[in-house]
């Protein structure tokens, strides 16, 4: 079958042979292999985001009984590609009273925070760039740079909407980070490891999925993750009726595109982490492992899109109250129950 790990092993060996033939040491072999892997994932991420944007538009259109983009290509399938080219050509307007350095670096920080996660996600059997022994904690840590990025964007724009959107967004993301991390701890209590690959390895059979042993944890993770990526019903930071476009109000052209890219990367990331922690990752019968991973993850992404067009937006006080007064105590309770079960049985 289409097992990509063999292909990757082959390419890796070819690179090693080539680099060694050039007379460079083993450090260089690793470096070149990693660069190729990272470039591949950048390509994958870009193509995937193009697909996700198209899917979002089509899903929303069909939920609202419209047809969505139809003109560019068959059923508008090239629409987002055309949009990307358009964004590339757009004039980049930098308002005159922004803080230029921070304004410039904010989209970079946001994108890198979203992209760096992909180094540890197991896309399939053997399809992981690096298996850190602190994998899931690394993901939690590196994604906090996303908050820094949006605070930088909000502050440097020198615009009231940007600032308010940025700070509201930051307050929301950090509030929901606590229950999310606690839900992850619930899983870690069972896995006894933080390595993403080992967590997947423990869920080979359907009945071993951690969602069965951590149903409350999964629900908490799902809600918190939806809030983390600012999706409806938690999309207050970009509540366009109140805040224009939130922290990206002053951004245009390629800089805006980077925020957009990061947003969709994050959406894929939370679905991928959910798949890895709760739904057995790439484990599955018949089909190749990476295909199972994509199916499960994209199903998660679809649910996020579906929710966006089904639920209304929460008020900001409901949002914060929900995180601190309901999700956090529930997550603590989940940990206590899990611990009790593990200790007693």
């Amino acid at each position, binding site marked *: 079958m289409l097992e990509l790990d063999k292909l990757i092993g082959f390419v890796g060996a070819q690179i090693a042979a080539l680099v060694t033939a050039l007379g460079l040491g083993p450090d260089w072999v690793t470096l070149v292999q990693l660069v190729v892997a990272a470039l591949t994932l950048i390509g994958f991420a870009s193509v995937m985001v193009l697909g996700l944007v198209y899917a979002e538009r089509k899903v929303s259109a069909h939920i609202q009984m419209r047809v969505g983009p139809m003109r560019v290509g068959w059923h508008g399938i090239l629409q987002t590609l055309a949009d990307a080219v358009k964004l590339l050509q757009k004039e980049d307007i930098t308002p005159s009273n922004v803080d230029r350095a921070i304004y410039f670096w904010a989209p970079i920080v946001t994108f890198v925070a979203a992209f760096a996660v992909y180094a540890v996600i197991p896309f399939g059997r053997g399809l992981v760039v690096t298996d850190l022994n602190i994998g899931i904690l690394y993901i939690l840590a590196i994604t906090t740079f996303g908050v820094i990025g949006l605070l930088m964007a909000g502050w440097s724009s020198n615009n009231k909407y940007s600032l*308010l959107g940025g700070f509201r967004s930051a307050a929301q993301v950090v509030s929901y980070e606590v229950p999310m991390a606690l839900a992850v701890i619930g899983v870690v209590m069972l896995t006894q490891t933080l390595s993403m690959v080992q967590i997947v390895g423990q869920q080979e059979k359907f009945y071993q999925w951690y969602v069965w042993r951590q149903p409350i944890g999964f629900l908490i993770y799902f809600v918190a993750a939806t809030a983390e990526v600012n999706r409806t019903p938690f999309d207050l930071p970009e509540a366009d009726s*109140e805040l224009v476009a939130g922290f990206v109000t002053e951004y245009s052209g390629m800089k805006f595109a980077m925020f957009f890219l990061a947003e969709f990367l994050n959406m894929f990331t939370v679905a991928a982490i959910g798949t890895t922690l709760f739904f057995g990752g790439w484990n599955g019968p018949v089909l190749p492992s990476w295909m199972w991973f994509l199916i499960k993850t994209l199903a998660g992404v679809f649910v996020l899109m579906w929710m966006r067009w089904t639920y209304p937006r929460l008020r900001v006080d409901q949002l914060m109250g929900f995180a601190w007064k309901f999700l956090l105590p529930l997550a603590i309770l989940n940990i206590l129950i899990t611990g009790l079960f593990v200790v007693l049985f």
Partner: protein
Amino acid sequence: MDTITLVFFALALLIITSALFVVTSKNIFHSAIFLIMALFGAAGMFVMLEAPFLAAAQVLIYVGAIAILMIFAVMLTARIADESIIHTNEQVPAGLAIALGLLAVILYGLWNTPLTIHGGTPPSGGGHKLGELFLTTFVLPFEVVSVLLLAALVGALIIARRDPGATPRPNDQSAEQTGA
């Protein structure tokens, strides 16, 4: 130069330049950003020192929480954009002298101290060893951390809480109030 040396000096350069900018930058928001870079560099150093769990903890707490809290505090205390304010006091020469003197003393001490280095394989990261130590040898400090955090939380809330008589307007959705 081998890779380890190269990475060490790159990280050291990142940490030191960022730290210098933290203490000299005119704009306090820029200081906060440079502080984040210095802290991230320190996390890189922890990775070099075979403490990956601590590196992640460092990023999670310092960058993800303390730095964000500082940026919020910067926002709450206005006038940051005004670069004309003098950001250093008249103690610059004295401060410089003290800092350099301290540095000289420490480096002198470091130079003249024979450092005993013990070999051994570090536990394979992942935080298992840390967890064991927390729950066995260091169990009392571990519980005291909890008390400390509680005290800090309650204390900070008491201090930072807004004036009771000042606002509560139930339908006030606008999150900004014009400063003085």
